């Protein structure tokens, strides 16, 4: 079974922007609402993707200057 990782973001807007950036790099992601144990402030969103892409995701988002709150899983 594919292991999934999550990049958590400060907002839905940033999450969608990140998804667009990753999509243009051919990295497939899904927007997910984070569980309570994944966030300390309540409602938050992240992008779920295959952990095999973790390094690529980090590289693309860093290159675009998109801030990730934290990475979960992997």
């Amino acid at each position, binding site marked *: 079974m594919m292991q999934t990782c999550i990049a958590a973001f*400060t*907002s*839905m*807007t*940033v999450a*969608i*922007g990140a998804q*667009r950036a990753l999509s243009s790099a051919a990295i497939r992601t899904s*927007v*997910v*609402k984070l569980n309570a144990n994944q966030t*300390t*402030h*309540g*409602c*938050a*969103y992240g992008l779920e993707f295959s952990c095999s892409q973790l390094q690529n995701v980090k590289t693309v988002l860093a290159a675009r200057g998109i801030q990730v709150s934290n990475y979960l899983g992997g």
Partner: protein
Amino acid sequence: MRAIVYLDNAATTFPKPYSVRRAIDRCLREYCGNPGRSAHALSLAAAKAIYDCRLEAAELFGIASPERIIFTYNTTYALNMAIKGLLRRGDHVLISDMEHNAVYRPVHALAAFGEISYDIFPTHCLHPNRNTEQILSSIANLIRPNTRMLVASHVSNLCSAALPVAEIGHFCRERGILFVLDAAQSAGIEEINCTQMQIDALCAPGHKALYGPQGSGLLAIRDDLTMATLIEGGSGINSLDDFMPDFPPERYEAGTLATPVLAGLHAGIRFVRDRGTESIRAAEHALYRHLREMLGNMQGVTLYAPEHVGSTLLFNLDGIPAPEAAASLDKRGICLRAGFHCSPLGHQTLNTGENGALRVGFSVFNQPNDNEILVRALGEIQHEHNTRN
């Protein structure tokens, strides 16, 4: 329904492009979930539609981060957010002598409560040889040590007089003064690049020359600028926190956004970008010149600052109060606006008199024939008036 000649586009454009109507309809029929509140299909689709609108607006106005586009109901709301969110007690503000009440009233209200002070700088609209240096010099003369903000209309909502925005932006940035631009009459017509023009906060309507529906507007703020919030509430994120998030746009967009409206605005901005502001401007300026020439050839017509070519022309029929003339035009199926256009400062500057004036505002959907119908009707109204008196 009889044929309407609509010349009140400075108030709101009508009609809207087909693509705008279709986008709103599609949103309402297919995906209008609550944006930014869930990760289910319809909520996400709505959030993505809003993101697309943010992106389109950011590209149009030269903003690098779409998160810096904050959606509002209109320009007035955006201006209030910028003015009240950025000013601090004791600040001094400069506004121009052509400002709409959307600028004048919030600034005056803050001053009346003793929070700030303000001065009005002359734009020299009626000066035949006015130039940028003259305007900047007038601004410089009013600067105080505590001057923190300059708020001004890019283009007057009365007479098409425009300010040299890039030069004012540079002037303000050099002096550490925040530059807030009211683009109510210029967004979608004039070139606006917030980064290049050093605009700290741009306030624009969605429902005028961006061809979106009413209820749409935006505030674009500089990257490193944080404002106090005007309203607080649900933002869809950080729900356990006592305060609003400290990052845009969610910090400033409490409550559910109007997804259908923003889907329409996105289509409207796309429409403008497809046509190109240069082409839109050229078409409206041609209509302006055409009407100015015809009105100039009529007896008993006073034009106000007609040398400022643009999309809006202000005039009066001598001896006929503007509201009376507008009512007579309405009976003939011609819609335009009479009175003071929420701009008492501007009317005072232009000396329009006790009844204000008549205002024609063009859009890309107007044709020279609209001008001809208007001028013919004005001639009839003058004739009727002269016969009665």
